[in-house]
């Protein structure tokens, strides 16, 4: 997978996020790392920075000193109480006196788990440092935030993304047309993981990579199209919209919270009166909250679709 093949291995290789990288380099130099929060949108290098930091710190056998956990897959309090604690408390003697625990998608941790984590971080600071990675630092509880050094990642500037694409195409011996490159940049909106996945998939279809290839890749990659589902509901066909939703959840295995995120951003792009956008935002927010509380994904989301049916009918009436 090219996302891994071209993932930088050392802080030196990271071309962007200069200020952040400089600070991280200074940690390596001092052989000391505070607890950190890396926050920012997807595909901006948060995980890469954490892995590079670890590698620079410990050398090639860094895996022995680093534990990588993904909070989305292991989000409960038990993981913190058992896995994390066991890892954190064992001392080891070496040049660097602490281990690093990378907690990816930490904003998906339950409140309980975060509370438990807070004590663990404090108690085992001697032996373990935590790097929490999240899209929004706001979703991480205050007491943890106050114990961490915050790093704010931002979308890559355009020229860096262009360089990134050029680097891959040169190395893989691919030809890409200007319109193809533009299309990738536009669709991925600064998310390098997305850029790379689209590029690799386009390359698997054929060359040269042009606008058409890129759009066909993106079209095929999103068969479960949230926008289409919303439009179906707006047009009044609730049963069909519900079927599309069910396919997303059951056939394509998408998570309800992911779908709701997409619904949220798509809603603001719909050509409906602003009044309705705000009204719907309230309904979406409520559904989102209920999902976090453990409500049923399909029922909550289809109630949302029914609201869109209502919106569609009212708008038609004028």
């Amino acid at each position, binding site marked *: 997978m090219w996302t891994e093949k071209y993932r930088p291995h050392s802080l030196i290789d990271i071309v962007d996020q200069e200020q952040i990288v400089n600070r991280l380099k200074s940690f390596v130099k001092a052989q000391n790392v505070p607890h950190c929060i890396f926050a920012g949108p997807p595909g901006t290098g948060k995980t890469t920075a954490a892995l590079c930091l670890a590698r620079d710190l410990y050398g090639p056998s860094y895996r022995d000193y680093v534990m990588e956990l993904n909070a*989305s897959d292991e989000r409960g309090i038990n993981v913190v109480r058992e896995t994390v604690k066991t890892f954190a408390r064992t001392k080891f003697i070496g040049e660097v006196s602490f281990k690093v625990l990378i907690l990816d998608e930490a904003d998906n941790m339950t409140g309980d788990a975060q509370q438990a984590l807070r004590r663990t971080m404090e108690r085992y600071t001697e032996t373990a440092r935590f790097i929490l990675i999240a899209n929004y630092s706001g979703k991480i509880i205050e007491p943890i935030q106050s114990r961490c050094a915050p790093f704010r990642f931002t979308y890559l500037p355009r020229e860096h993304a262009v360089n990134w694409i050029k680097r891959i195409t040169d190395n893989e011996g691919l030809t890409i047309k200007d319109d193809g490159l533009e299309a990738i940049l536009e669709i991925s909106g600064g998310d390098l993981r997305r850029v790379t996945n689209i590029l690799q998939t386009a390359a698997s*279809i054929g060359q040269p990579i042009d606008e058409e290839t890129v759009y066909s*890749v993106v079209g095929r990659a999103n068969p479960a199209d949230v926008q289409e589902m919303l439009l179906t509901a707006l047009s009044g066909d609730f049963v069909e919209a519900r079927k599309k939703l*069910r396919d997303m959840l059951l056939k394509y*295995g998408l998570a309800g919270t992911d779908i709701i995120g997409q619904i949220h951003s798509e809603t603001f792009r719909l050509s409906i009166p602003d009044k309705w956008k705000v009204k719907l935002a309230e309904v979406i927010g409520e559904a989102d909250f209920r999902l976090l509380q453990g409500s049923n994904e399909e029922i909550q989301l289809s109630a949302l679709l029914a609201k869109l049916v209502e919106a569609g009918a009212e708008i038609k009436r004028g």
Partner: protein
Amino acid sequence: MFVPWTIKYKPKTLAEVVGNQIAKDKILKWVHEWDRKPPKKRALFIYGSPGIGKTVVAEVLANDLGMELVQSNASNYRTAEAVQKFAGTASHYSTLFGKKRLILFDELDGITGTADRGGLRVITDIVKTTGSPIILTANNVYEPRFSTLREHCQLVEFKKLARTDIEAYLKKICSQEGVEAEADALRLVAERASGDLRSAVNDLQALAQGKKQLAYDDVSWLSTRDRKEAIFKVLSDIFYAGNVWDARRAVDAADIDPDMLLEWIYENVPHQVKDPKELAATMEMLASADMYRGRIRATQNWTLMRYFIDFMTAGVAISWNHRTSGWVPFRFPTRIMTMSHSKAQREMMTVIGLKIGKRCHISSNQAAKDVVPYLRIIFQTNETMKNGLSRWFDFDEDMVNYLSTKK
């Protein structure tokens, strides 16, 4: 497109109409009397309980004899004026091309005293003088208001159908739908219908549509229908409840798992509630019910159960204005079927997601969302990349197949 099986498998000829042989013979004899001159009784009054083929008989008769069927049912206005307009001329002249007419006044029980004022009187007048055969149907011919009309009609009773006849009919449908049904299952459905073929076919469709097999276990809950009130009855009591109390009580009367009941209601809401505003309101009630269910699960506080039930019963009942026009059959919750069918798929997705996540430093959810769609395209278009990536991710054969098949 949903086609009710009651329509799809409606008989096309008189011979195909199940049961009631004596009645059918009587009708044939009567209609052939018309070949010479109008018989003494110019109308046939077919009566009997619902769902046994009264209307169908008139339809297939017209079809068999190449006549044009002119019909009016409870959905039409049947005031004196309307009836005159509809049947007055039709009863005296043949069609433009000399085709004979058969006039059908269906569902006469549905004639109301106020809205259809004078309708019955005009029908009686037409019956006395008609030049075309007329068939009337009703559930109960002995209602006082039919007394005059009755005198001018030949009465034909349609009896409830035998269980074995219904069973045979269901069997025929199953074989045409490609459903392999256990004999016990069909027997139960037939038995339960107590002579009403239409409801048996509706039940069968709700249970078996889209399935390859129908086992006794799939239908066994029907057997509780008579004792404890069936799910269809409960649904109807909830959707069409006159007040919140009735709706709420429908659940207490039934012996149904509330989770299962929610599935039934959830499936049927959009088919019953068509108005957009009401649909949104009804779905919101279900979402609230579901929210309480979530809270019960999270807190194990079972006293919250009553709110869960309030919202899905009383909440649904008051959220829409149940007009009685057109009965829509209730359906079997498809979500449960879909969930069990796609369970293997979802498990596969999770395993693949975890594998990808491990190598790409992301969660399985994120892998399903951000990586799998692209992998699918690659696996379906580029053999070399597919092989390389399969090795790199350490996918087994099943996973590779899963990603390589189009869907």
